[in-house]
């Protein structure tokens, strides 16, 4: 519990009274901010791996950047399912499970694509390894975003 603590020429009658609930989120705000910074850092590391796989002098081929499409598309099935089953209290639903299915497919495709490129020697295997490492870090970052920022008790659509 946090309390009002004022200095100077202000109304001292509120001194020591509990802060209203909307101003008590100091600790939670700090925690969320730290999580945001950590996730941004890991996202930057993932993108660095991806760019290294393309831009190093040894490699110099930019085809692997197409995996960014998979990264961008991967949260979409989850949001569609969340929108469709908004009113339901059930633990799961056919729509949500289909969303998990397609999300998994998109993740597998993001890993399969660089391997196929390396198999036909469009990119070198070293570049493929860097791109796969970047993929792993970026998908863990995306999952981290959902874990940290998906904890809202009432998910309001007014934030969209």
């Amino acid at each position, binding site marked *: 519990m946090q309390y009002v603590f004022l200095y100077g020429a202000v109304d001292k009658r509120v001194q020591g009274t509990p802060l209203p609930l909307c101003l008590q989120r100091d600790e939670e705000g700090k925690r969320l901010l730290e999580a945001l910074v950590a996730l941004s850092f890991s996202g930057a590391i993932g993108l660095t791996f991806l760019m290294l796989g393309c831009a190093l002098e040894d490699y110099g081929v930019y085809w692997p950047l197409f995996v960014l499409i998979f990264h961008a598309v991967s949260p979409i099935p989850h949001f569609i399912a969340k929108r469709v089953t908004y009113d339901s209290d*059930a*633990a*799961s*639903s*056919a729509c949500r*499970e*289909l969303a*998990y*299915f*397609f*999300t*998994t*497919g998109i993740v*597998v*495709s993001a890993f*399969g694509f660089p*391997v*196929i490129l390396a*198999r*036909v020697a469009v990119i070198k295997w070293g570049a493929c390894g860097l791109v796969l490492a970047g993929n792993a870090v970026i998908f863990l970052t995306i999952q981290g975003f959902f874990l940290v920022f998906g904890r809202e008790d009432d998910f309001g659509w007014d934030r969209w």
Partner: protein
Amino acid sequence: MAGFLDNFRWPECECIDWSERRNAVASVVAGILFFTGWWIMIDAAVVYPKPEQLNHAFHTCGVFSTLAFFMINAVSNAQVRGDSYESGCLGRTGARVWLFIGFMLMFGSLIASMWILFGAYVTQNIDVYPGLAVFFQNALIFFSTLIYKFGRTEELWT
């Protein structure tokens, strides 16, 4: 000596409630298998581009397997039993016929892929990898269908 493993118990992990997550785990495993099957086929098609090495007609097996996957998983077990409130556009018998056709397509594609592997690759003296790719694509899609259909419980939907 008999029954010496009777009292063996796996180490307990209480942190996760697996019964609530069963459907999610089944969906994810099915997704991994399904898309791995497709990427194996894409890999074979990319590495062996000539029709003498991989006849383009062999892609039909995978296409029919995928169609069968969606047909089989479009009907819920409740509709097949006749338990659900809304009967859907086909009713109970229609749902059963749909499921039957779906399973026939699935088994047909699986058998066709085995036939292709042995008839067009193993018995001819050519590189057998594309035939294996066709077979594994259909086998993986088949197992993915089974896990997606029977690995999930509909009780979590109520």
